């Protein structure tokens, strides 16, 4: 018997429970990525001399594997006295990694804002913080929401990497079930199907959102 339905039903609740951890890691990681990415993109524009440093930093983060960055934060930070539990270390690593990608998305959004908007706010004597908060960001964000959504899905698909530092998310739980029962077919296939379902649904949502935003912009 290649596929055992009884076993499948037995492990389903355990995996569903682990899925919550994966989703938590995704949401926390994405909050870090979206915020830090925004901070990087804003500093880059507000303080021109940082532009080069930030783009090198972004390149460094994007050029090295996330798995190694997770190991780095989990194993190296304690040497400097900063001991993090596996979940926190993993979420921070994922958050920083995707912040690099998100900052490029924000940058593209900011670049699309017409120069006249900046000039107008200078003419109105607005501070650069006010300009960002009230003029630039509200116009820059809507068009890039779908791109950010794609990174949210990509980030979600990276959460299985946390199993490498033994966080009890979906993949780790599936591996544990597999090593205890010697049945890998059902747990790993279920994990795959879960990710497939989530990403198909979110792709459809992002497409719908994109259509909605386009309509609003056209109007």
């Amino acid at each position, binding site marked *: 018997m290649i596929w055992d339905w009884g076993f499948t039903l037995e492990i389903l609740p355990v995996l569903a429970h682990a899925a919550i951890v994966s989703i938590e890691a995704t949401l926390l990681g994405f909050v870090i990525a979206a915020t830090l990415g925004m901070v990087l993109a804003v500093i880059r524009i507000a303080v021109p001399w940082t532009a080069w440093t930030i783009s090198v930093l972004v390149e460094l983060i994007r*050029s090295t*594997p996330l798995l*190694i960055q997770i190991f780095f934060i989990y*194993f190296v930070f304690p040497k400097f006295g900063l001991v993090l539990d596996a979940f926190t270390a993993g979420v921070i690593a994922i958050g920083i990694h995707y912040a690099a990608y998100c900052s490029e998305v924000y940058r593209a959004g900011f670049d699309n804002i017409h120069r006249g908007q900046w000039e107008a706010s200078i003419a109105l004597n607005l501070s650069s913080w006010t300009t960002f908060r009230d003029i630039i960001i509200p116009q820059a964000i809507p068009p890039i929401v779908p791109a950010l959504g794609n990174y949210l899905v990509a980030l979600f698909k990276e959460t299985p990497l946390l199993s490498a530092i033994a966080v009890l998310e979906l993949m780790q739980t599936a591996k544990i079930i597999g090593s205890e029962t010697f049945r890998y077919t059902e747990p790993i296939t279920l994990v795959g199907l879960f990710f497939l379902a989530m*990403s198909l649904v979110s792709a459809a949502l992002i497409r719908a959102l994109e259509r909605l935003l386009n309509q609003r912009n056209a109007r």
Partner: protein
Amino acid sequence: MGIRTLVAMLAASLAVIAVLATQATYRLFLPGLLQGAVLTIEIAVLGSLLAVVMGVLAALARMYGPAPLRWLATVYVEIFRGTSALVQLFWLFFVLPQFGVTLDAFLVAVLALGLNVGAYGSECVRGAIQSVARGQWEAGTALNMSRSQMLRRIILPQAFIAMIPPWGNLFIELLKSTALVSLITLTDLAFKAQQMNQNTFKTIPIFTLVLLMYLAMSLTVSIGMRLLEKRASLGLARGRAA
């Protein structure tokens, strides 16, 4: 980021590795890590080749294939883009043997990463083909060419140039994903790092070197793709100017 900055970054990272290698603690780990890097490069190169083949085939099948082939390609692309590379790797490594197909870990690594990146690649091949101006197809029709002739002689050479930058990004993604194969027991760069870390607890030198080595490899790919892009678009630029 300009090609000069990339070259400067590559030179800087190699220089840092060289300087660190003069210190005893770092020099101790370098040979083992380099050994791992060789496997990483092998998997990355073979995986990239498979990804290009799969990407082109899947894109052509989805755009011009008969219905069953089109569905097959769509299912392939959706499955490999919808699940994560690690899950695919584990599935091929742990589940496939239960169906009676046992592959060696190296083959699993190349297959999983190549198929994964190929699925993303098919979308960029499709985008590049669609970005070729309609008039080019019409000109082909006017010359009484068959569709495969038009594709081969007119469309694909032009689409090729548009494909280079996104494929460059994908090759770097693939190179980074090779770190995952350490989790199915292959002794690549990431595996060597973990192994050495467990044996010696010299965490800082090991992971610093590993990050620098991955950085140097990624930058090499970036620079190579930039050069290729420059070369490939030479003819096009001339054509436009004339």
